[in-house]
């Protein structure tokens, strides 16, 4: 359980640029490096974590449960969120005095292009799991819906699941 805790704590510490950066980070560590779960299971996990109101980071709970059962999920969840919760408690205490905020904000803006590149790399390697024409059509359709409408991802995922059950 210790390597598990350490892994998620590490991710929690370098988790900037919003929730989506977690997809490349977790995929890289858990699928490519440690081989704790397969790419398919990982993708299923992303879909499942989108079915809750919590942040996309609930993906940590799913992967934790996959690796170490309920306790694994609990440890993964605590460790991934611990750094940002502690940081926010410190910020809450000193927030009126954090004069360096402009510097932090600018640094953050400067790092975001790299985050975009990393999230794109996740789409790239996850796309390698798709084989059939039907899957590529589904991807294109989903992309178009997300791009041009404001449909909730949860609805889309539930809808896709229902369609998948009906199709031969």
């Amino acid at each position, binding site marked *: 359980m210790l390597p598990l805790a350490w892994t998620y704590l590490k991710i929690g510490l370098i988790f900037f640029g919003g929730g989506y950066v977690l997809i490349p980070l977790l995929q890289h560590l858990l699928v490519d490096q440690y081989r704790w779960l397969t790419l398919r299971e990982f993708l299923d996990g992303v879909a499942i974590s989108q079915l809750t109101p919590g942040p996309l980071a609930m993906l940590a709970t799913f992967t934790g449960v996959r690796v170490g059962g309920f306790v694994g999920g609990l440890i993964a969840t605590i460790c991934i969120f611990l750094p940002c*919760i502690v940081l926010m408690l410190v910020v809450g205490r*000193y927030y009126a005095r954090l004069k360096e905020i402009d510097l932090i904000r600018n640094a953050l803006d400067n790092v975001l*292009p*790299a985050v975009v590149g990393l999230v794109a790399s996740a789409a790239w390697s996850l796309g390698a799991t798709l084989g059939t024409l039907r899957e590529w059509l589904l991807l294109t359709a*989903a992309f178009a819906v*997300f791009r041009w409408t404001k449909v909730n991802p949860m609805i889309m995922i539930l809808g896709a699941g229902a369609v998948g059950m009906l199709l031969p």
Partner: protein
Amino acid sequence: MTPDTAPRSQVSLWEIFALFCKVGLTGFGGGMAIVALTERMVVKEKQWVTPEEFLHGLAFGQILGPFSLNTCTFVGYRLRGVPGGLLAAVGFLLPSFLIVSLLAWLYLRFQHLQLLKKALAATNPVVIGLICAVVLDMGKKQLNGTGGWLLGITAFAAAALFKVNLALVLAAAAAWAFAAALYQRRAS
């Protein structure tokens, strides 16, 4: 540094926990939808924090981790200090944690069922489509000028084509970003 204005103490810890549980249970839509819901509840309805304070919390919330969770932690802290912040965070995450744990357990138990396999197989391309849409959306906002494009493409190439350790890529990008921010401040 010394702490500024002491956190208010009229709101009970239980109230904080219960409110953020409600946010964590009903805030479907994630991210900004959660923030909007939280704002309506703690700023407009309960008037626990001022709109300015809430916006500051949101701004700081972008530094590390998910900003929806961070905004909740911040509001909880402003109300009742560390216990308030912790209870707000736990309350917000608890419903999702329980739902995901249950779904993950069901998934691992019934993974082999043909019907579930078919349903999940159809969700995989949708998830990738969602990630592509996010890339385009973030890219439009964040990839400004040659420098931004260069950094984005370098990060992509390092991660996707050369399989460089992602933590390393992020750390390098962060160091570069901080140096650039320092330089910008000097220049202005």
